[in-house]
C-alpha cells in the first residue's frame, strides 16, 4: 500500500454573504488555489475529481452534473460524494490505493447565503412519518398553489400539526445538549467557554468571519434558542469553499511536495431513530477507533498535537472531545476551564476558530477543519501556529439531524 499525501490545499475567504460570486466561481477559486499550491495542472496531472455536496443545499437535482467545468474535471473521472467534505478525503484515499489513480482532487463548499429556507431544507431531512409532523410544520390547504388541488379535492393533510407554531430544526441540538449536560454534569458555563475561546481564536485566522471578543457572561446572557442552547452557543452559517489535492507518495516525491500524510481515516453512521440512537456521539467514537487503528495511534492524548473537532454547537466540541478519547465522560468541560484547549495548552483545539469562529460552512466543514490541520503541520498558521505540530486530527459531524461523522488524521513526514 502506498502512503497518501496532501500535496495541495486551497480555499476562498469565508464570508457570511458572497453576493459578488456565483457558486461555480467560488468552487473555481478554491480549486485553482489548491492546484497552484500543488504546482500541478488539473487538466493534465489530476486523475480523478471528487466533490462533496448535498443536492438540497445546492438547489439542483443530480448536482454531480454541474461540477466538472469549475474543478477542472471536464471529460475526466468525476463523482460526487453526498456528505461532508471530509468523506471526500477517505474516498480519495481509497481511489489512490486502487493504483488506478495517482492524484485526486476533493472539493466541498457552502453557499449558505443562497438558501432562503435553510430551516425548512433541514426539516426536510427529518423522518417524514414520525419526526416532521411533531417538529411543528404548519400545513394548510393551499388551493391557489397548485392547479391539481380544488375545494373538492384539497391537498391532503395527513400528519400535519397546524395548530402549533413552527420550530427551527436546531431544537434537536437543544434536546441533545440537555441530555449531555444532565448525563455528564457539564455546565452551561463550560459550554459558553467554548464559544468564548473559539471566537477569540478566530481573531488570528484571516479567513474566519465570526471572530468576537466576548465573555462567558455574554454567552450566558444571550437568549435561549432551544434551552439549554443559547444564541451564542450556535455557529452561524458562512459561505466558503475548500479544495484538497491528494496524491500517492511517489507522485508527491516526484514533484517535490512537502509530505503531509493522510495517515488515518475512519467514518461511521448512527441509526436515524432519534429515540434509539445514543446521544454520546457514538459515530465519532467508532470513526476515531478506525482512524487510530489505521494511523497506529494507541494513546491519542500523547500522540496527537492538535485537533479540530466539530463545534457547530458549543456542547458538541466537548461531547466530541470525549468521544474521541481526549477526556473521560464529563471531563471535557474541565479541559476548557483549565486552559488545556488553548493554542498553548496540551491539546490545542479548534485553533482556526472552528465553526463557532469561522462559521458553519455546511458540507465544507470537515475540509475547513482538515485545512487548519494541514496548515498547522506545514507551519504556515502565522499568529496561531502551534509549535512543532507533528500529528493532527480533524473530525466532522454531518450536522442536524444526522448521526454521521468522520475522522481524518494527518502526520508531517
Amino acid at each position, binding site marked *: 500500500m502506498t502512503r497518501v499525501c496532501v500535496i495541495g490545499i486551497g480555499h476562498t475567504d469565508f464570508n457570511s454573504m458572497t453576493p459578488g460570486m456565483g457558486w461555480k*466561481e467560488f468552487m473555481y477559486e478554491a480549486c485553482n488555489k489548491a492546484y497552484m499550491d500543488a504546482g500541478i495542472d488539473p487538466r493534465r496531472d489530476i486523475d480523478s475529481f471528487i466533490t462533496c455536496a448535498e443536492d438540497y443545499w445546492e438547489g439542483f437535482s443530480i448536482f454531480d452534473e454541474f461540477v466538472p467545468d469549475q474543478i477542472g474535471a471536464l471529460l475526466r473521472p468525476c463523482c460526487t460524494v453526498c456528505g461532508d467534505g471530509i468523506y471526500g478525503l477517505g474516498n480519495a484515499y481509497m481511489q489512490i490505493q486502487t493504483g488506478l489513480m495517482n492524484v485526486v482532487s476533493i472539493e466541498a463548499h457552502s453557499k449558505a447565503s443562497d438558501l432562503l429556507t435553510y430551516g425548512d431544507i433541514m426539516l426536510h431531512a427529518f423522518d417524514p412519518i414520525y419526526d416532521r409532523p411533531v417538529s411543528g410544520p404548519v400545513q394548510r390547504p393551499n388551493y391557489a398553489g397548485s392547479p391539481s388541488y380544488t375545494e373538492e379535492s384539497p391537498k391532503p393533510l395527513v400528519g400535519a400539526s397546524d395548530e402549533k407554531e413552527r420550530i427551527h430544526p436546531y431544537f434537536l441540538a437543544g434536546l441533545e445538549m440537555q441530555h449531555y449536560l444532565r448525563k455528564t454534569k457539564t455546565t452551561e458555563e463550560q459550554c459558553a467557554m467554548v464559544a468564548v475561546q473559539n471566537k477569540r481564536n478566530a481573531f488570528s485566522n484571516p479567513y474566519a468571519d465570526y471572530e468576537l471578543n466576548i465573555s462567558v457572561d455574554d454567552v450566558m446572557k444571550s437568549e435561549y434558542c432551544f434551552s439549554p442552547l443559547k444564541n451564542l452557543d450556535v455557529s452561524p452559517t458562512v459561505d466558503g469553499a475548500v479544495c484538497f489535492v491528494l496524491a500517492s507518495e511517489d507522485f508527491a516525491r516526484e514533484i517535490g511536495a512537502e509530505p503531509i500524510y493522510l495517515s488515518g481515516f475512519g467514518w461511521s453512521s448512527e441509526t436515524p431513530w432519534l429515540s434509539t440512537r445514543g446521544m454520546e456521539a457514538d459515530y465519532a467514537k467508532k470513526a476515531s477507533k478506525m482512524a487510530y487503528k489505521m494511523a497506529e495511534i494507541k494513546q491519542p492524548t500523547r500522540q496527537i498535537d492538535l485537533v479540530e473537532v466539530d463545534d457547530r454547537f458549543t456542547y458538541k466540541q466537548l461531547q466530541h472531545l470525549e468521544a474521541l478519547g481526549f477526556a473521560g465522560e464529563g471531563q471535557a468541560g474541565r479541559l476548557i476551564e483549565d486552559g488545556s484547549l488553548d493554542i498553548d495548552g496540551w491539546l490545542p483545539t479548534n485553533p482556526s476558530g472552528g465553526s463557532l469562529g469561522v462559521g458553519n460552512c455546511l458540507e465544507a466543514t470537515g475540509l475547513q477543519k482538515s485545512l487548519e490541520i494541514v496548515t498547522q503541520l506545514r507551519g504556515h498558521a502565522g499568529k496561531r501556529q502551534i509549535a512543532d505540530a507533528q500529528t493532527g486530527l480533524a473530525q466532522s459531524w454531518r450536522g442536524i439531524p444526522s448521526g454521521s461523522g468522520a475522522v481524518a488524521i494527518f502526520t508531517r513526514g
Partner: protein
Amino acid sequence: MEQKKDEKVTYPKYAPGTHVSTSDIYQKNITYSWWEPEVQYAWSLGPAYSRFLEGLKEGKILGIHCHKCKRVIVPPRSFCEYCYGPTDGWIELPDTGIIETYSVSYLDPDANRIEEPILIGVIDIDGADEHHGFMHYFGEMSKDEIKIGMKVKAVWKPEDEREGSITDIKYFKPLRGGE
C-alpha cells in the same frame, strides 16, 4: 391487451383487482404520508452570468473570449472548462444563429398531449464558436418547416418587459431572405 369497453371483466374472488384511485387518497382509504418541502434559493450569479443577463435586458447577446483556446463562448462563463484559465474580453454577438437541433414536443410534464406542439431546440449563435449557444423556443414557423441548419433570429420582448432573463427573448423565428 386491450379490453373492450363493454366487456364484463371477471376477477378471481381472492384478487378483486381494485385499483387505487385518487379518491382513495383523499378519503384516506390507504396508508400514506404527505409532505411538501419549502425549498427556495436565490443564487448569486457572479460577474459572467450577471453581465450576460444585463445584456439581454438591453437586447444584446454577449459572448466572452478564451484567448488561450481561441474560443468565443456563449453563454459567457468566468473560466474556460478546457484550459481551466480565466476568460476575458467581452464581445457583442448578433442575435441570429442556426438551429443545431430541435424537437417538436407533444407532451406536458404530466404526459398529457399538448394541443399545439411546442418547438424547442438549441441555437448556435452567430459569431461564437461552433456548439456555442443556448436552448430556446421557436416561433413563426410550423413543425413541418423547422429543420436543422435553419437560420433563425431572436424575437425580443418589448424593452420595458425585459428583466434580465433568458426569457427576455420570446423565441427564435426563421431568418428569411432580405431580413
